[in-house]
């Protein structure tokens, strides 16, 4: 019996390219994506003219507050939500025109720990989803074993997923996505609900696997540490729109991140009040013998501040620019889209 083959997945023997456009194009091109829910006055624009492209082998973070449109954007890219307008090309293939051809390049972890079969074992899940994605599971058996080792799942490989902890289930979800031969992987909140140690392991191994297999990854997360740690580039969304799209390094140099910290034993309450009135004071801390004030301002404003302090006869103990982190940049760009986490605040102090 002759069995017909589906559109061929990317394999080592058979490179991804089947046409020149598939060779030359970026891994992902999103152009003018728009998605509205509802109609009339109650209509909500969840994705508002979103465009970006992702080069092959790069890891791009999608960051934004709740309701920013990250998940809808990812689901629209994958065709799981049908957009009102716009186009998406994966490895040069239009995902709406030729979904089956495009899906051979793609896999996604959309719902955290909710995208595999809990009644099957870990290994059975890897084999099943490899097959569904168009790869003979035996031909990637070694890859599966490495994944199990890398994600600390080897000991649990023959246990049903339902018997595992939430963190382990999350790792199985990730493993079942990476068990395929997809070259473009979408990860929606991959570390959601993980403890610190599990999150660190997952980030470390994700970086290693991405480098090993030259994967292209679009990753959405609320966890800025994950984005900062794993991603080459960050796309920040707010109210359905892309409001920033740059490398992590460039974003950290944003004007919004220009913060100055002055520390002095001579700043009294009246002077603190005056500084607060004239400048954008982000944080002020008063101890028994010293006062520390963080001010967001440009260089001209900084000189004004120093002049004010000098005029008041203040002796400065120190003046420095605290290193901003991605969360500072994010809060600046989204007008505070969520308060800075306590853990982060502690760390920056």
């Amino acid at each position, binding site marked *: 019996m002759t069995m017909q083959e589906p559109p061929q997945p990317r394999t080592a023997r058979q490179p991804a390219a089947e046409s020149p456009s598939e060779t030359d194009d970026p891994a992902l091109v999103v152009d003018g994506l728009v998605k509205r829910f509802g109609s009339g006055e109650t209509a909500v624009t969840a994705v508002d003219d979103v465009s970006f492209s992702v080069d092959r082998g790069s890891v791009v973070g999608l960051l934004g507050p709740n309701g920013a449109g990250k998940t809808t954007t990812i689901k629209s890219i994958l065709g799981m939500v049908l957009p009102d307008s716009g186009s998406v090309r994966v490895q040069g293939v239009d995902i709406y025109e030729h979904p089956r*051809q495009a899906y051979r390049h793609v896999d996604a972890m959309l719902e955290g720990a909710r995208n595999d079969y809990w009644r099957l074992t870990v290994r*059975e899940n890897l084999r099943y989803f490899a097959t569904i994605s168009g790869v003979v599971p035996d*031909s990637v058996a070694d*890859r599966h074993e490495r994944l199990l080792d890398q994600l600390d799942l080897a000991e649990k490989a023959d246990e049903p997923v339902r018997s595992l902890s939430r963190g382990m289930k999350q790792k199985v979800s990730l493993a079942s996505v990476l068990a395929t031969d997809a070259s473009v992987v979408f990860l929606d909140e991959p570390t959601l609900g993980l403890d610190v140690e599990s999150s660190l392991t997952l980030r470390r191994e994700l970086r290693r696997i991405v480098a090993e297999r030259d994967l292209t990854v679009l990753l959405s997360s609320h966890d800025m540490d994950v984005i900062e740690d794993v991603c080459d580039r960050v796309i920040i969304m707010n109210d359905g729109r892309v409001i920033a799209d740059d490398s992590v390094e460039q974003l950290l140099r944003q004007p919004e991140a220009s913060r100055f910290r002055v520390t002095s034993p001579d700043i009294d309450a009246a002077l603190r009040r005056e500084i607060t009135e004239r400048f954008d004071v982000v944080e002020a801390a008063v101890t028994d013998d010293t006062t520390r004030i963080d001010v967001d301002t440009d260089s001209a404003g900084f000189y004004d501040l120093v002049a004010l302090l000098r005029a008041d006869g203040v002796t400065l103990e120190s003046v420095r620019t605290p290193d901003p982190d991605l969360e500072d940049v994010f809060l600046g760009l989204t007008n505070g889209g969520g308060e800075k986490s306590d853990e982060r605040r502690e760390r920056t102090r």
Partner: protein
Amino acid sequence: MSGDSRTGPASDGVRSSGDDPRPATYYHLAKAVLYREYLIFVRYPANAIGGIVISLFFFGLLFYGGQMVAGQALTDSIEGIIVGYFLWTLAVGAYSSISNDIGSEVQWGTLERHIMTPFGFAPVALLKGVAKVVRTFLTSALILAVMLAVTDTALQLPLVTITVVAALAICSVLGLGFAAGGIAVLYKRIGNWLNLLQFGFILLISAPAFELGWTRLLPLALGSSMLQRAMIEGTRLWQFPLVDLGALVVVAVGYLVLGYAVFELSTRRARRLGVLGDY
């Protein structure tokens, strides 16, 4: 599915035979889907056993209760009742497993991964349907054997005829299952209402398809009448008029295609509304 293929991690930089991705064919897909169904069946038999016990309980009620009320009249028609009940358990098993399975896939977050397959969702869904039908055949065969033993009844069992006629009759029910699953994906949590449809199967199974021509176009009706003839009168597949066989095939394929089209339209609408993965 092939056996355990673990060969250990490949050494760095060297691709072993276990890390040389080869494209899967529909054969591999079929193996994977059927093997998964098999694993669930043997690993979690409680559902299947529960279904068998409940089916036999209701048959017991029907048989002994009917004997008390109708006496000899029921005993005279017991063969027809057994065949009808056998087909009803088959139909209910196939319908509920396919419609509930789609709902479960939504809850598990796996429906989207099945839609995102380069094989396309249709062959995956069809294979899942085949797996459900095979499973239901096994459990219904067991129920049939117990019914025959309890009632001390003998029936003709021309296996080829029974398998072909029952499978074609069930195809139309699979179509209804796909339609119900699609509607559940769109409207959520209406599974209990859709399950009521299975009681409508009783009417379809008892429809006089040979006497009332138009009822042949209904799902299950013609299949049920043909199955009665095969199992009670011993009619073989090749002894049925061609027009009946043709009608059986057309109805089976028609409802299957129609049901899948409803599923496609419903999931497309769900994707438009952004509720595909919601539950």
